Each structure stands twice: as structure tokens, then as C-alpha cells.
């Protein structure tokens, strides 16, 4: 068995064990309505993680996407509160956030600033800017009448929730871009060896910029869904996206040895299904944080399995 297959089998066994445990513990777990609910929840984590996947693919770290998503959601709520329609509000705030994401991309890509620190800085600044819309208060006005809540409540053909449709569409497009096109190979080339990529004629700075824009955009879409589910513009809603998104991407890497669209989905699925199961068992939220953190740690340990073996061997020798 190849390395990838081994870790895939290990992972699927783990997933099956989790599913079995939840099925035994809660009779509601294995029902259609719960799964539709779980998929709706999954779509938020999964979309945010997908954007991050692009940044990790070009070998950088984004510590700002959750802050950017707060800005986008507040901008959207603000546009709605002053009377614009849902479509305009969503598109306008996505445009705003794309330009802010481009700023990240330019700082890191063109000027070569260190990715983590710069994005922590820009992210904090943008989070501060998000307060400008309402001074940090909830935005209720027009929210329920405007139809924005269809973003979460709406159903395609009367069955499939809109968030799931958005997720599937974004994953399909990203899969085409990252795994089925020459641009996708360029993303990985930039991530593996920027210098070699530059000498092969790839415009490195441009790919870095695009990755950061995609990350900001996708996180914003995820948070818009989240906010429209809550029924009010809340500034801190997006802050919680950071951990699960990173965890999902790294679970994906631990299976497929590189950031991939399908790996990210599997990672998001695992984390989301655990969160759903624990919610059904009415475990307090902070235990879920604990589990998400442990699965992040566990997946990276798995990803470096060769390192573990050398470590164990060393222990044996010593």
C-alpha cells in the first residue's frame, strides 16, 4: 500500500469509529434531518477551510481570514440595514473584501513581507475597521424583511439547503482550478519552491495575491451564511472560523501529504461531524474546542509519520 492509501485507511477507520460511537450514543444522530443539519453546519467550516487551502498550497499562512470575514459580514449587514437588496449587499461586500485581501496579497507577494505577522497585523486592522459599521452593536434593521436569510434557509428544489449548494459549487470550481488546470499546478509549484517557480516563468507574486484574495473571499462567504443563520449582523461571529479551518486543512494534508481540495473537505467533514455529534450529546462547546485542537495536533503528527518512527526507534536504541 502506498503511503497515501495507508493514511486514508487509518483515517476512514477513525471516522467510522466516531460515527459508530455517536450512533450508539444518540438515536437522532443517524437520521436524514440531522444529516441535512450537519451538512449545513459543515458548509460553513468547509468553505472557510477551502479558501485557506489555496494559501497553504502556495506555501503561506493566513492568520487574517477570520477577521476579514467579520468585516464582510458587517458590511453586508450594513448595506442591508440601509435598504439595499440581498444580492447587491453580498456582492458589494465581497468586492470590498476582495480588495482588502488583495492588500494582503500585495504585501506578502510583491513586497515579500513575512506572511504570518503581516496577516495578523492587517487582520487586526480590518477587524477594527469592521467596528465602523455599527460601533460593535448588532445590526438588526431590515435583516429579516430583506430576504438575506434565504442564504441560509433557502432550499434548492425544496430539499437541498442553499449553503450546501454553495459549498458543492465552490468545491467543484476549486477542484477544477487546483487539480485539473495548469494554474493549479502553478499554485503548487509556487508553494514547493518559489525560486524554481519564478525561473519557470510563473508570476509568483500574482499567484500569492490570488491565493490571499480567494482565502478572504471564501471565509467571507462562510461567515455571511453564518450571520444570515443567526438573523443579525454580529461582529464576532467570524472569529471562531480560525481553528476549525486550520484543523481541516491540516487533516487533509495529513492524509494526502499536500493541501488538496478533497483532503480539505474530508478534514472539514470530520471536524464538523464531531461537533455535530457532541452537540447532540449536549457536551458544552469548550469540549469541542478541545477535540478540534487535539485533532489538529493528531493529524499533523500523522502527517509526519516518518518522523514519529525515527523518534520511536531512537527511543528504543536509547
Amino acid at each position, binding site marked *: 500500500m502506498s503511503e497515501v492509501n495507508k493514511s486514508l485507511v487509518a483515517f476512514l477507520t477513525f471516522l467510522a469509529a466516531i460515527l459508530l460511537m455517536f450512533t450508539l450514543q444518540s438515536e437522532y444522530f443517524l437520521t436524514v434531518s440531522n444529516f441535512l443539519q450537519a451538512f449545513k453546519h459543515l458548509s460553513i467550516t468547509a468553505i472557510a477551510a477551502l479558501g485557506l487551502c489555496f494559501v497553504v498550497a502556495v506555501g503561506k*499562512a493566513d*492568520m487574517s481570514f477570520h477577521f476579514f470575514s467579520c468585516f464582510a459580514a458587517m458590511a453586508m449587514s450594513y448595506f442591508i440595514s440601509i435598504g439595499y437588496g440581498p444580492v447587491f449587499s453580498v456582492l458589494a461586500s465581497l468586492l470590498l473584501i476582495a480588495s482588502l485581501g488583495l492588500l494582503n496579497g500585495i*504585501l506578502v507577494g*510583491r*513586497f*515579500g*513581507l*513575512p506572511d*504570518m*505577522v*503581516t496577516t*495578523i*497585523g*492587517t*487582520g*487586526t*486592522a*480590518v*477587524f*477594527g*475597521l469592521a*467596528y*465602523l459599521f455599527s*460601533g*460593535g452593536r448588532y445590526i438588526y434593521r431590515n435583516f429579516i424583511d430583506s430576504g438575506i436569510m434565504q442564504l441560509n434557509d433557502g432550499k434548492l428544489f425544496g430539499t437541498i439547503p442553499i449553503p450546501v449548494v454553495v459549498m458543492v459549487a465552490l468545491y467543484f470550481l476549486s477542484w477544477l482550478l487546483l487539480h485539473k488546470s495548469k494554474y493549479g499546478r502553478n499554485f503548487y509549484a509556487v508553494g514547493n519552491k518559489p*525560486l524554481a517557480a*519564478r525561473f519557470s516563468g510563473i508570476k*509568483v*507574486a500574482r499567484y500569492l495575491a490570488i491565493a490571499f484574495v480567494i482565502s478572504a473571499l471564501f471565509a467571507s462567504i462562510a461567515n455571511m451564511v453564518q450571520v444570515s443563520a443567526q438573523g443579525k449582523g454580529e461582529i464576532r461571529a467570524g472569529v471562531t472560523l*480560525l*481553528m476549525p479551518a*486550520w484543523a481541516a486543512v*491540516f487533516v487533509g494534508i495529513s492524509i494526502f501529504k499536500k493541501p488538496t481540495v478533497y483532503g480539505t473537505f474530508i478534514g472539514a467533514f470530520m471536524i464538523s461531524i464531531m461537533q455535530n455529534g457532541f452537540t447532540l450529546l449536549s457536551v*458544552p*462547546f*469548550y*469540549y469541542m*474546542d*478541545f477535540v*478540534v*485542537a*487535539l485533532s*489538529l*495536533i493528531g493529524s*499533523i*503528527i500523522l502527517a*509526519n509519520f516518518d*518522523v*514519529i518512527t525515527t*523518534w520511536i526507534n531512537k527511543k528504543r536504541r536509547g
Partner: protein
Amino acid sequence: MRINLFKRDNVLVWALLVLVLFFSFISPDFRRLDNLFEILRSCSLIALMILGVTWLVASGEIDVSFPNIAAFASIVTAYCIKIGIPWGATVVIAPISAIPLGLLSAFLINTFRFPALIATIAVASVATSLASMVNGGQPLYLAHSSDVVEYFVYGKIGGLVPVLFLLVLALFFFAKWIQDNTTVGQHLYALGENRKASLEAGINEKRIILSIFVLSALLAGISGVLLAASFSSGQPRIGGSFFIDGLTAVFLGSLMVKFGKPNVMGSLIGAIIIATLSNGITILGIPFYVGTITKGLLMAFCVGITMLNRKNKAPQLPT
């Protein structure tokens, strides 16, 4: 040693002076002597938390878990008091309880080659959720306070100079001595300059990383105890402003003394600048998010200056 204030290395001291003069000029409340000393007191906690972080960033790692570890220690403090452990033992137990979290970060980085950012994000989350488990996610109020600990937090010598700041100042001078006069200090910066070369030179990278992470967690733990004393409660989710304040101070600090490299004295001045900024903004009645925006931009700006300067020194390939 002759101190030349007009060197570029001391630009931050001038920035601080300009900032203080500016706020003093427009606000009579700001320029009162007790307010100026209050700024020094409020910067002490941040300064305490970022001492270890400064060295971690200097050696090419990063630590984002320090506010969460401090929050964890604060709730451990409250819990120890609740179950009847005397203060004298608590001030030892709580910082020590934070050390395993630092060990975990170092272990993940050293053994499994985790990127420091990811490892400390995970550890931060572990710390927060452990802290929440202690009291169901709620703040835990201190059953009774201790005069000695209160004196460390609020005490003022001569009614003016904060005790806490003097202690932190002494700690920073000691740290400066370690940083500049011992081999450990030299190895630290060697790691940051060129990891591979310093390994070839026989520097024990893992031991240094491990000890700084333990130091960082220990100091975060101590500030957690002080936090608990100053809020009269242990809070599982303090994090927020300490995170950006601390990191901004470290990167501001890298603009002085050793240009482009984080260092302890720079971090101290950075922490004072951040505290001055927060204090001035509060006193002038400016909305707090203006401070958030400013700090974020300041941080990106410092990193930008450092990197562009480094590029000018060592010619690189055109992008």
C-alpha cells in the same frame, strides 16, 4: 557604555516621547503624574508576557498562545483559592501548571517539526478549553484576596512608582544581560539568522527552543496570577487585546537596539508605547476600535520597515 540618543537604534524612544508629548498637549488628564505612572503599571503585564515571545521570535519561531496560557493560569489561581489552597502555594502552583502547555508546544515543534504557528494555535485552543472546563466556561471569582499579591499588582512606592513596573524593569535588565552577555543569548540570534548554519556549528537548537517555550509559559502563568488578582476573578477568555498588544510590542521593539531583530529592551519600550496609545485613546474618549486599527497597521508597518531594510542590505533577485 555611552548612550547616544541620536542613533537610529533609539528612534523608538523618540517616538514614545513624541506620543507622550502629543497626548499631554491635548489632554490635561493625560499629563497628570499619576496617569503617567499608571501607564507604566498597565504596560507591565504585557511586558511580562512578551519577554519569552521576544526571544522566540528572535530565534525564528512564534508564540500566539501566551494570552490563552495567562487566562488558563488565572482560572487555576481562582480554583486553587476556591478549594482552600493558601495564596502562598497558589502563586507557585498556578505558574507551574502553565509549564506543561509550553512543554507541549516545544515538544510538537521539536519532535514532530510542527510549524510554530500551528503548534501554538493548537496549544492556545487547548489552554482555552481546559480553562473553560474548570468552571463551565464561566469566570470564577476569587474567594478571598491576598494583601501581598495585591501589593504586587497595585502597590506604589512613595504613592507614585508602581512596584510591578520596577520588578518587571529589573527582570528585563536581567534578561538583557542574558541576551547580550551569555552564549545562550548569542545562540538565540544565531538560530534566527541561519538555522542550518547554527546546527552545523553545534548549537543545541532543541534545548534552546524548549527552554524559551517553558520560560514563555512560566511568565504567562505568572501574569495569569497577577491578572486574577487584578480582576478579582479567573477568566477563561481574556485573550483578545493582549494578543495583538503583545505581538505589536514585540515587532515595534524590533525597530530599536538590534535593528530588525526582536530584543528585550525594544519589547519593553514597545509595550510602553502600546500602553500609552491605549491610555491616550481611552482618556480622549476615542472609540476603542480606532486603537485596534492603529495597532494592526502599526504592526504591519514595523514588519514592512524591517523587511525592506533587510532587503536593501542583502541584494536579492528581482521579483
